[in-house]
């Protein structure tokens, strides 16, 4: 097992369900954001829950599953478009075990389970990423792309590179769980 990643206890807020949210992350409209539990939101991340769908009642803007990681300086914002002449932002749904690398901008409509997104990526508006897909570092995915399950995408614009092995699901699951356990507060003693 790899060595633990330590963080300062004062820098993160831990919820009852095990979410760890950095105090230095910018979270707008938190009432519209759902975190599944054991999700880590790193320093400098920006999550825009304020860009909600108009209309009455409660609107979920961004929902994240379990064991997710939003890397350092990531931007997560819901996509927008006009539909039948009305402008609206649309909700963003992210599954379980999704890791998003640092400095990535995500405007996807849907991200499945067990997805890995590298650092410095741009995920365009209304992109759909299916289960177990992987996006390499520095990829730029244009708007409205669909990334199929078990595929690796890379480049600018992001293109299909290869199929991933069927064991991806187990690998990513183990990896994300391990990352969560490795992510520990610094020992208080000293």
């Amino acid at each position, binding site marked *: 097992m790899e060595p633990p990643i330590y963080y300062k206890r004062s820098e993160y807020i831990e919820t009852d369900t095990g979410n760890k949210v950095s105090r230095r992350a*910018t979270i*707008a409209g938190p009432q519209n954001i759902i975190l599944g539990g054991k999700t880590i939101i790193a320093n400098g991340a*920006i999550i825009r829950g*304020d*860009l909600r769908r108009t209309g009455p009642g409660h609107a979920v803007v961004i929902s994240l599953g379990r064991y997710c990681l939003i890397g350092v300086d990531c*931007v997560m914002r819901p996509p927008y478009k*006009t539909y039948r002449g009305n402008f609206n932002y649309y909700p963003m749904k992210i599954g379980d075990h999704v890791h998003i690398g640092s400095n990535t*901008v995500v405007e996807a409509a849907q991200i499945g389970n067990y997805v890995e997104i590298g650092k410095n990526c*741009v995920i365009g508006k209304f992109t759909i990423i299916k289960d177990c897909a992987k996006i390499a570092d520095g990829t*730029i995915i244009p708007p409205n792309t669909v990334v199929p399950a078990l595929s690796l995408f890379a480049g600018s614009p992001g293109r299909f590179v290869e199929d991933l092995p069927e064991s991806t699901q187990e690998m990513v699951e183990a990896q994300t769980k391990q990352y969560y356990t490795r992510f520990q507060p610094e020992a208080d003693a000293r």
Partner: protein
Amino acid sequence: MPPIIRDKFTIHSKAIVCQDIEIRGDVTIGAGTIIHPKVTIFAIAGPIFIGNGCIIEEGAIIINRRKDVMRIGDDNLLEIGCRVECPEIGNFNTIATRSRVHHNVRISSFCVIGAGCLLAPTEDETLDDYTVVYGPSAELRTWSGRGKVQEADLRRKHAEYLKEMLPKFNRLRRGDGT
């Protein structure tokens, strides 16, 4: 010692400027312009003028290192994390996510700088109207102008929506005058 920058913000009463931004120097922001949180605007040497109806998204960086005025026209969209240092931007341009434009580029009108493009020519360059910059090596093309009305409509509606929604969730900044 760096020169002392005098802060002077002139923000139109109809502009929506979030509190959580970094702003330095002499900056003028026009009516109906929307500035999201976490935007950086640095007028280091000369002042910056931002026109009407622009949308500047989070993480965008606007810097003026020259002595001259930096003018940004009307109805421009500066998307997430873009970095702009050019002395002149016309109207109705889109500077997409995470693109960078250096200080020796002048942008006319109706241009699009694609996501992640780096525009850093060795000598001064002016982008003509309807230029599109795209791809990893920042190639140029000309836009036929198709869908211009729709695009304008989308931008107008977007600004309208943000004008209504942003103040509900974010603290706003007012100009010096008020």
